[in-house]
């Protein structure tokens, strides 16, 4: 779907992106992660040519993007930025309709699409469609920004710190909505963030950058348990336990034990894909704890063993 080869960009004497290459399959979510100033936003903007690279190529569906008109290219790629950038003199509905209009879609189709998207993003159109951006809260604005990026149903969505400007509560809830949004399931997504938790929550794969250079490209679990270098290890050190809880699933934790005890499938409401973090939340919630076949203590013990297994497995 997206193939990036040897992309480099300098601003003056400062090398912002150095020889970055990666490939992204259709439907995959790649998170560009790294500290401020690591070049992740510049890298993202080179995908839709808001920044032109000094060298290297970007191919989308096998076509070199530098051989296309930038406007045409961008209309086929959803784009969301941290400051949202809604057009302040357009209503919510008009903002959502910008790209479909540029593409010359039929007005009726645009209206239907706008209504559907706003409804799905919890912005009832009858209430919000005619409002102007400044009348909305930050979270609502970002939802409109997301709706705008999705309006023309582009196969690729680029997001530049989309939740960065929101307060933690709003941020968590929008992120959940984002993750559960049907629209996004089939999309190829590239998301820039400096928030490690966010990256682990949303990414299929993470590209960790520092000073414009790729430090490691892999699944969250690979970055966590098999760091390629000291930078990667240090980058996750502070939130290591939280990330491990989010990364390991009940399937990981209980595999061998389940086999030896032959206790059957993992009890409802859990599946093998439930993370330890989520299972713990359910268990410690007094109402839901009744029907489970293991206790918090059992889970934590199994988690500890699983961690040891992972460490040893990678050491070998």
């Amino acid at each position, binding site marked *: 779907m997206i193939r990036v080869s040897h992309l480099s960009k300098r601003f003056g004497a400062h090398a912002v992106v150095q020889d970055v290459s990666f490939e992204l399959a259709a439907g995959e979510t790649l998170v560009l992660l790294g500290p401020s100033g690591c070049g992740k936003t510049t890298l993202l903007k080179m995908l839709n040519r*808001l920044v032109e690279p000094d060298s290297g190529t970007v191919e989308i569906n096998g076509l070199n993007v530098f051989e296309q008109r930038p406007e045409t290219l*961008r209309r086929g790629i959803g784009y969301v*930025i941290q400051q949202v950038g*809604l057009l*302040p003199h357009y209503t919510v509905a008009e903002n959502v309709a910008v790209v479909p209009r*540029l593409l010359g879609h039929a007005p009726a189709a645009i209206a239907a699409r706008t209504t559907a998207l706003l409804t799905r993003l919890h912005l009832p159109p009858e209430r919000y469609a005619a409002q102007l951006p400044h009348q909305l809260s930050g979270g609502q604005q970002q939802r409109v920004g997301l709706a705008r990026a999705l309006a023309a149903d582009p196969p690729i969505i680029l997001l530049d710190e989309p939740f960065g400007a929101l307060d933690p509560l709003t941020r968590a809830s929008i992120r959940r909505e984002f993750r559960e949004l049907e629209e996004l399931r089939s999309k190829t997504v590239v998301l820039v963030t400096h928030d490690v938790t966010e990256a682990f929550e949303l990414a299929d794969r993470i590209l960790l950058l520092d000073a414009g250079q790729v430090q490691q490209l892999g699944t969250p679990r690979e970055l966590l348990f098999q760091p390629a270098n000291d930078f990667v290890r240090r980058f996750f050190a502070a939130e290591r336990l939280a990330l491990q809880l989010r990364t390991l699933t009940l399937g990981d934790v209980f595999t061998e034990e389940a086999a030896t005890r032959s206790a059957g499938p993992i009890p409802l409401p859990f599946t093998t894909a439930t993370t330890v973090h989520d299972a713990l939340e359910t268990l410690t919630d007094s109402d839901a704890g009744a029907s489970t076949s293991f206790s918090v203590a059992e889970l934590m013990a199994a988690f500890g063993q699983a961690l040891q297994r992972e460490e040893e497995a990678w050491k070998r």
Partner: protein
Amino acid sequence: METLAALFTFWREQAGKLGEQTLQHIGLTAASLLLAVLLGVPVGLWLSRRPRWAPAVLGLAGVLQTVPSIALLGFLIPLLGIGPKPAIFALFLYSLLPIIRNTLAGIQGVAPAVVEAARGLGLTDGQVLRRVELPLALPVLMAGIRTATVINVGVATLAAYVAAGGLGEFIFGGIALNNPAMILAGALPAAGLALAFDAALGAVQKLSARRLRQVGGALLVALPLLGALYLLPRATGKLLAGFSPEFVGRADGLPGLTKTYGLTRLPNVVLAPALVYEAARNANVDVIDGYSTDGRIRAYNLRVLHDDRRVFPPYYAAPVIRPQLLREHPELMAVLAQLDGQISDSVMTNLNYRADYLHQSPQAIAEAFLRRRGLWRAPRPAIADAPVVRLGSKIFAEQYILAEMYAALIRGNTNLAVQTKTGLGGTTICFDALRDGAIDMYPEYTGTGLLVLLQPTPAVVDSLGGRPDAVLNYVRREFQRRYNLEWLAPLGFNNTYALLMRQQQAQELGIASVSELGQYLRR
């Protein structure tokens, strides 16, 4: 209160003229504004793309802004002639700075995130400009246009100096005649226009961005229409006259002429006194007012139309003086009397010709004349603390020359010091200066003293019948009685008002007198 009543009377009598001038004023403002928007907005947009040039361009526009408006018109006349062209161009230059600056500021004020998002969505550069940047910059841009409009309404009053019409005609006429009602008759509507435009554009500016786009568009359509107002009310006739503001207003000028000769079909434009001769020479106008001794009559080959019904009273030049001066320095009497009856019409025309056309200095002309007449004495060495005689003059060459002659005579024949206060503007300024003791003497004309300063009833004027001696005696008597000022003996020439035409045209049309002009116009 009296002025107010006079003002309403004036407006009632001049309603047609007032309407015409108001429309011209709006037209001048709108036309120049349109040009400034057409150039200023693109320049502002260009600067927003190339901010490095902004200081240079804004600096240049700022310098234009600081050129005094009268001086700017002066620069433009050799290039663009007289009429609406220099006026509109000058107003256009004054509008540029606020429009360019506010366009730039408006575009720069658009949040970068909005522009980036718009580009990221796939808007082309042109679409970003038209759909995002311009609409969002419009309130600031409109503020610039508003500023420019208010400036223009004010400066457009000066258009009357270059025969471009507008409300300045009344204002300058009023200033020249010291007629407050007439000044107000032009100034109040001009101020009203400025306030009305300011309020209207202020209201437009407060509209929401989306409404503003429509109104902005409507405004761009409205400007040329308003500009066209300028062309609308121009009365046309066989000949076009160009008159100085003073001539248009004073009783022995255009009003008397119109009444006596029935010059009703002579549309006229008003322009600065200094420009009327140029306008006639360049055929911008056909008939002008002037003075019968003006040097440019000879230089530009103009014909003085004979005043066969004697509308213009005699204008014999004589010094008007404060009597205290003669009491304190009796020796001056004989010195000043050396010029009595010395200067004929043709001599004065020649002296003026040297000044106006050969551009000799008034001082040199005065010295040369005195030498020829054997009256020249080298100035005596200056004495510290010598009493000072202050000589005034109005703001034209003849008066400068006369003032310099008296100055040379006093310096050569007495021990008094002389201070010349030349260029005191029009009649009333000189006269007021003399009454207030700011000057001790200045050359005045009997006709001016009679009609402008004394303003007797028509019955009195009729009784004098335009006889030179009668007028001089009346003026002398009344000046002593009313103002305690003294008229000395006349210098000899009669610098009366005159209607002038180009020699060639007058000959072709067979016009030698004002009566013949009237007949020609009525044919």
